[in-house]
């Protein structure tokens, strides 16, 4: 049994413009000790999906369907007291904006020991000692002195470390990180990511990492979910997602990553914007923006299927699944892109025409995917 199983979760927000389905029937699971990435654009419902795990969706939002099973127990059925016992103790959260997630009127140390005292009957002394140990564990130098510093006296990176320390205060089984590095510059970001990776390695803490940064995912995740407009459109082990993306949206995301020394004058983008979830597109939600869309895409909603066999996804987390009609065999022209990987041996030789290696996929999709991109796509 997986540590956390999310089954057909639906979260709605009731707004003046209508009902917004921020999360629309997502299912996934997290096993103990693994790191799962949840990526997507702003507004894809990533944060909502994470808050729902702790039942922190407030009015006007509501979890209207599905199950969230943590160690086999349905979180949505727990009483308020049981839920409070779970929060922080078993499932903890690290927020995006560490500066805002720390209360400005208390010292950082007090806030960490508060988290400890909430769940364990310890003396103030013990709580203090453990808070200092936690500060040290997340890489804050001179933790005893920094214990009595106020949040505004910490830099952004240290604030994020302090928030992670708060999340770790009771050794949770699952740490939900909601864009923990978005506000930080890259060097600090690297430090935080290394910290998270260390934590995942040392302890048996599973991490759900919500981000829109594919680089972050590549660095520390084991598996990745790609979320678009409230739905999961692709699920894959991390290497496969980068070397062999299956869903056009994932492909678009990967194609949009700018690279130094790129000859092209314009940055690649996915045309259009995230759809209005009050009135989502019919059929495949990505079809208005998808360059490979055909008529059938607007009519039929693609199920999440295993890309190898085309059979409906059975939830096995190690398989590669995508929600595109291509893999159910409904697309006439197929998808037309390829993944090029520069060989590591060429990187040192600075050659202008590097050798290109093509990573072919499996047999089912190879024919279309391997078609020459300069050729006629139709």
């Amino acid at each position, binding site marked *: 049994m997986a540590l956390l199983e999310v089954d057909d979760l639906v979260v709605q927000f009731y707004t003046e413009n209508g009902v917004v389905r921020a999360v629309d029937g997502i299912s996934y699971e997290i096993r103990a000790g*693994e*790191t799962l990435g949840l990526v997507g654009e702003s507004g894809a419902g990533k944060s909502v999906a994470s*808050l729902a795990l*702790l039942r*922190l969706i407030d009015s006007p939002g509501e979890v209207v369907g599905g199950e969230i099973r943590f160690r086999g127990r349905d979180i949505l059925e727990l009483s308020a007291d049981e839920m409070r016992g*779970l929060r*922080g103790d078993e499932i*903890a*959260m690290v*927020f995006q904006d560490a500066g805002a*997630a*720390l209360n*400005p*009127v208390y010292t950082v140390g007090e806030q960490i020991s*508060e988290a400890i005292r*909430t769940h364990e009957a310890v003396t103030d002394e013990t709580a203090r000692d453990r808070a200092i140990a936690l500060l040290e564990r997340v890489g804050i130098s001179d933790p005893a002195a920094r214990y009595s510093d106020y949040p*505004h*006296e910490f*830099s952004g*990176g240290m604030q994020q470390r302090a928030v992670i320390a*708060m*999340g770790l*205060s009771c050794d949770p089984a699952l740490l939900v990180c909601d864009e923990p590095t978005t506000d930080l*510059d890259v*060097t600090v*970001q*690297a*430090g935080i990511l290394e910290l998270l990776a260390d934590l*995942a*390695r040392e302890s048996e803490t599973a991490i759900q990492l919500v981000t829109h940064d594919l*680089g972050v995912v*590549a*660095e*520390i995740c*084991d598996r990745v979910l790609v979320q678009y407009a409230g739905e999961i459109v692709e699920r894959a*082990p*991390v*290497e496969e997602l*980068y*070397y062999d*993306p299956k869903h056009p949206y994932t492909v*678009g995301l*990967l*194609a949009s*990553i700018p*690279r*130094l*020394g*790129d*000859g092209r004058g314009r940055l*690649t983008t996915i045309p259009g914007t995230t759809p209005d979830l009050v009135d989502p597109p019919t059929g495949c939600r990505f079809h208005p923006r998808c*360059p490979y869309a055909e008529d059938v895409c607007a009519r039929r909603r693609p199920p999440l299927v295993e890309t190898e066999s085309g059979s409906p996804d059975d939830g096995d987390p190690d398989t590669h699944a995508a929600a595109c009609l291509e893999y159910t065999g409904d697309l006439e022209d197929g998808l037309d*892109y390829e993944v*090029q*990987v*520069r060989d*590591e041996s060429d*990187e040192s030789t600075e050659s202008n025409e590097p050798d290109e290696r093509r990573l072919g996929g499996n047999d089912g999709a190879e024919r279309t995917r391997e078609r020459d*991109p*300069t050729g006629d796509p139709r």
Partner: protein
Amino acid sequence: MSDRHPTTQRGRIRIVGFDDAVADQQAGDRENDDDDDTIATGPIDSSTTPGETTTETESEPDRPRRRLEDAWRRFRRNRTAMAGLGVIVVMAVLAVFARPIEVSTAEVTITLQPFSLAPYDPSAMFVGPANAPPSRAHPFGTDWAGRDQLSRVLVGGRYTLGIGLVAVALALCVGVPLGAIAGYFGGWIDEAIMRLVDVLYAFPFLVLAIAIVPILEPIPVLGGGFWTVVLALAVTGWIGYARLLRGEVLSVREREYVTAARALGVPDRTVIRRHVVPNAVAPVVVQATLNVGTVVLTAAALGFLGLGLEPGSAEWGAMLSQGRSSLVQGRWHITVFPGLAIFLFVLAINLVGDGINDALDPHRDVSDERRRLR
């Protein structure tokens, strides 16, 4: 963690064809741009060196250590507020040391405070001639019963200051929890509390207090006078704080640190007490300080109307009320001195309230400095 080695060469992976397809779709033409997107790009060395980074060593060094210290520093720089605080302190000291304070039981009398600044007993009659104008023996003159006005004004400060501070403190004790609960939980709790506030708000402050005093008067525990007035003013006073705090809490509870505390499993009452109220209470503190003046005026008005303290007690408002008949006889000194005392105290309280308002707003710091430089 899996046994995969970390993907550090992000620059190696390259998608070709997606943007072409986009371009095709957008242009609608079949012609493909054949200029093969030169892939001649050096791979980005994205393997950033993690570890201790120099950027996170020091925060702004000149930031003061504590919020309250900081506020006190700003408050001290405000001369008018300090003057107001000085006036209040002097008045309080005078009131406390005006007459000895004694606690009497059946046998023993314990003297808590032996000093007596007031030259006479404020209730002793005919210590001088009746209605005498200010003189050396009686600097503020005497009233119709020959009581020394200076002594009465000094001792009256106990009633007035006491009513002001205790009534406001009581009102805060009711208004702050109710406002915080209404704002934090919302829903029907909020509705119930806020509709009650609305109903009480529908009455003018003074009229409500006048209505409450006769209701409270028969309760024996309260005795006549001081506590009746205090309670009447507390009952009418808490609604303002509750409404003000609720508004603040509505915005504070959306802050991420409140969500973060809840995500850690902190119980609601602790969230309110430790995270919500301390961050929302500043405007209420300012309002309460300013209200001390209003409450003192209302207490004086009640005394003037003959409600509240028993007649003849040395409360400033009651003194004004009793002196009004002598005003037409040209004896100005009987009303001027208690009136001046009320005026001075309320003015001082307002100056301090403004000072606190400025001191609790950290943005004032900058503009203060700028003004000073000019």
